[in-house]
């Protein structure tokens, strides 16, 4: 082949590639199968992932998280500046932004929305913006957030669902006397600031969203987003049925694919099996109080906890339970969490070391203990039976107690549990949320475990005000070292979000914090 032909071919290929990258198609309704329905679509008063993970499609935030969940990109605000003393943030609102009813999004709406989010009497998420002292406005485009103290996570907090912007006047004019009553009536006929508007909601069955004609963002074709005319969320609780619906073409996407089906769907025609990076970690929480009830608790001994960690063959559990989809944890926080530290798996499987540690702790002949397992949950039962066998090798006799979730939560909160399985996902692109629950004892007593490290508590408190990135990184590195070596958990694995899409679906992403972003999704005709 001569040079000229080669060059022509390459040019044609290049044109083809760039053309296909630009050739987004508009229109159509994407049907998405969810495992459970949302409960209450109010950014401030919700309390479940089923709400959080779809809220950003309805309500926009001042700043948006990047697709990798770690960075920031402009949302309703185009610019932001943290003052030199770190005690205020000045944000510039985008020109011409409107709610779905056509009314302008004003600094007053932003002021009201942020104050509502920070109100300690409203909802359970206000701690994420607990540093906000006051919010003021200046002119038509400027919002100033005054802080009680320096807060290194304040910008990340402005990407979180609870700081989304709602129309003050329409909300306040909604039926009801209390904020919750107003939120209820408003969320039945909401006015959006995000790419979509709630069109109808048949609780437990389906939720239909249509495009917000007034949304500010532009697509690759230069016209306003979203590309889709709408999204139909269908509630299909049974995993097998959700997959069948996708395979039969009745829906275009299905969330929470069981790990056991991932390989099969990767091979399936017409299906794009996605594994989106996530902040989800799976672990065992141990109660480390010296006594549980009136019984001595061997788990209070740090060496015993380390022994159990070494005796846990995580790779085997990953193969058995996640069918190889998961990966080993390198810190208690996921590798997708900012300031995560660690490059090798925690507690590489070492039975000899485990036995030695048990001997050193004075438990050479083992002991009997118990683990709470969520009844009927195949993953948890799989993990529990594997641990029963693995810990049996160092003399630990493990009783499995199958209970339903509220019963387990009760024992957990009361501090009367011995061990339990658990999973965690971050809601904010900052390590402060996971650290406050796992490490910092005043929040919930380090996962209700009774574990406490004065040094870690101090590090956390300091890191909450530390604006110097290098110093904060160092504080988090120390916190992770302390927790990973003596903490009250057995880290098991981190897993991505398994989502199966029809090959027609493009541009959809589930970010590591779990948010399903449909704003730039489109359907190939």
């Amino acid at each position, binding site marked *: 082949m001569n040079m000229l032909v080669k060059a022509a071919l390459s040019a044609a290929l290049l044109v083809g590639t760039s053309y296909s990258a630009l050739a987004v198609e508009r229109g159509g309704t994407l049907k998405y199968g969810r495992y459970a329905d949302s409960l209450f679509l109010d950014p401030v008063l919700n309390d479940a992932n089923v709400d959080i993970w779809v809220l950003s499609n309805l309500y926009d935030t001042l700043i948006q998280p990047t697709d990798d969940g770690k960075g920031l990109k402009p949302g309703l605000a185009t610019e932001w500046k943290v003052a030199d003393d770190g005690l205020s943030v000045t944000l510039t609102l985008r020109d011409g932004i409107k709610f779905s009813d056509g009314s302008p999004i004003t600094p007053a709406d932003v002021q009201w929305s942020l104050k509502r989010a920070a109100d300690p009497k409203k909802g359970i998420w206000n701690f994420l913006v607990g540093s906000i002292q006051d919010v003021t406005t200046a002119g038509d485009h400027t919002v100033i957030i005054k802080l009680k103290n320096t807060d290194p996570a304040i910008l990340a907090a402005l990407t979180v669902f609870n700081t989304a912007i709602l129309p003050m006047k329409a909300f306040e004019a909604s039926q009801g006397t209390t904020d919750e009553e107003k939120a209820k009536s408003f969320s039945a006929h909401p006015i959006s600031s995000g790419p979509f508007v709630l069109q109808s909601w048949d609780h437990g069955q389906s939720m239909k969203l249509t495009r917000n004609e007034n949304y500010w963002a532009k697509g690759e074709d230069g016209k306003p987003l979203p590309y889709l005319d709408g999204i139909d969320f269908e509630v299909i609780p049974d995993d097998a049925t959700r997959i069948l619906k996708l395979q039969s073409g009745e829906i275009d996407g299905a969330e929470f694919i069981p790990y056991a089906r991932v390989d099969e769907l990767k091979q399936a025609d017409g299906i794009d099996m996605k594994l989106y990076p996530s902040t989800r970690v799976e672990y065992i929480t141990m109660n480390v109080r010296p006594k549980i009830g009136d019984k001595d608790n061997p788990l209070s001994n740090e060496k015993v906890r380390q022994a159990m960690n070494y005796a846990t063959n995580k790779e085997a559990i990953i193969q058995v339970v996640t069918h190889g989809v998961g990966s080993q944890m390198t810190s208690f926080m996921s590798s997708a969490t900012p300031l995560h530290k660690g490059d090798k798996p925690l507690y590489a499987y070492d039975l000899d070391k485990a036995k030695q540690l048990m001997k050193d702790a004075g438990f050479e002949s083992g002991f009997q203990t118990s683990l709470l397992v969520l009844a009927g949950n195949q993953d948890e039962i799989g993990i529990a039976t594997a641990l029963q066998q693995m810990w049996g090798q160092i003399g630990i006799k493990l009783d499995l107690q199958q209970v339903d979730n509220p019963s387990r*939560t009760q024992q957990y909160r009361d501090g009367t549990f011995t061990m339990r399985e658990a999973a965690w996902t971050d809601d904010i692109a900052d390590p402060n949320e996971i650290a406050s629950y796992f490490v910092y004892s005043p929040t919930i007593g380090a996962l209700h475990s009774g574990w406490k490290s004065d040094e870690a508590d101090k590090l956390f408190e300091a890191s909450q005000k530390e604006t110097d990135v290098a110093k904060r990184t160092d504080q988090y590195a120390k916190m992770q070292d302390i927790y990973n070596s003596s903490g009250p958990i057995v880290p098991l694995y981190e897993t991505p979000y398994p989502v199966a899409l029809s090959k027609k679906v493009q541009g959809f992403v589930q970010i590591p914090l779990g948010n399903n972003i449909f704003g730039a999704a489109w359907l190939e005709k």
Partner: protein
Amino acid sequence: MPLLGFIFRRVLQTIPTIAFILVVTFILVRLLPGDPASAMLGDRAIDADVQRINAKLGLDQPIPVQFLYFTKAVFTGDLGNSIGLKLPVIELIAHRLPVTLMLTGMAALIALLVAVPLSFVAALNRGGAPDAIIRGTFQIGLSMPVFYVGLVLLTVFAAKLRWFPVGGYGQNFLDDLYHLFLPATTLALSLSAVLMRNLRAAIIGVVGADYVDFARAKGLRARVIMTRHVLRNALISTVTLFGLSIGTLLGGAVITETVFAIPGAGRLMIEAIYGRDYPVIQGLTIALALLVSFTFLLTDIVQAWLDPRVAR
């Protein structure tokens, strides 16, 4: 008229039954470990939030006080609001229960349409090939779990052959019937097996009875003997069984509704129990208890009509 008096007595008997169920449910849900606020807020809940929400729901009051408020509300027709969904319970029931009624109604109808003719064929060919085939097939149907049958039907008739939609619920009445056909068939399978075994045995018993021989000797036509003498008498025990099975059918609907993604009352109940959503559990229990009591009442009435001795 003995039948009217009988109906009146039976309706009266239903009242204490419902009251008893109400009290027991009210107390039992509160004795379950866990509370609505913890269930709703999950593992991350901090004490202050849990206490604030439980206090707002009145759950910090003693159980007898809560019961007084509840009884008062029930008598004014107010079943409260769902804690999780934040919607009036009455609205949720009005929305979800008809779906379950339609599903179980359709299942009952399919079960009857299948069981009655087939049990005649089996009984009249007792010991023959049709009898063996019919009984064998139903034995398999009876021994397979509902969720498995559901998935098999979905895979074959919905995903592969595309004759039916893969679960979900319709947009109008005809569409609902179309969507509910596979789940109703799934539910009907085990019920029809039970009904068929019972009816077959009853027919065999009645066919050999003296009054049937007498009817034959009178020269009555076979069809008249079958409908007027054999079926009517054989049905008495089957009607009782059918009535009692409605409770089981409602139980089976919980699983079927999950597998087929049908937004019915069964699924609502499961979700409410997991969420410790007391008002929904209580409201649904009242509704389901009324429903089952009403079915039993109907069963008794039909039985009294088939066999007037019952009403005496």
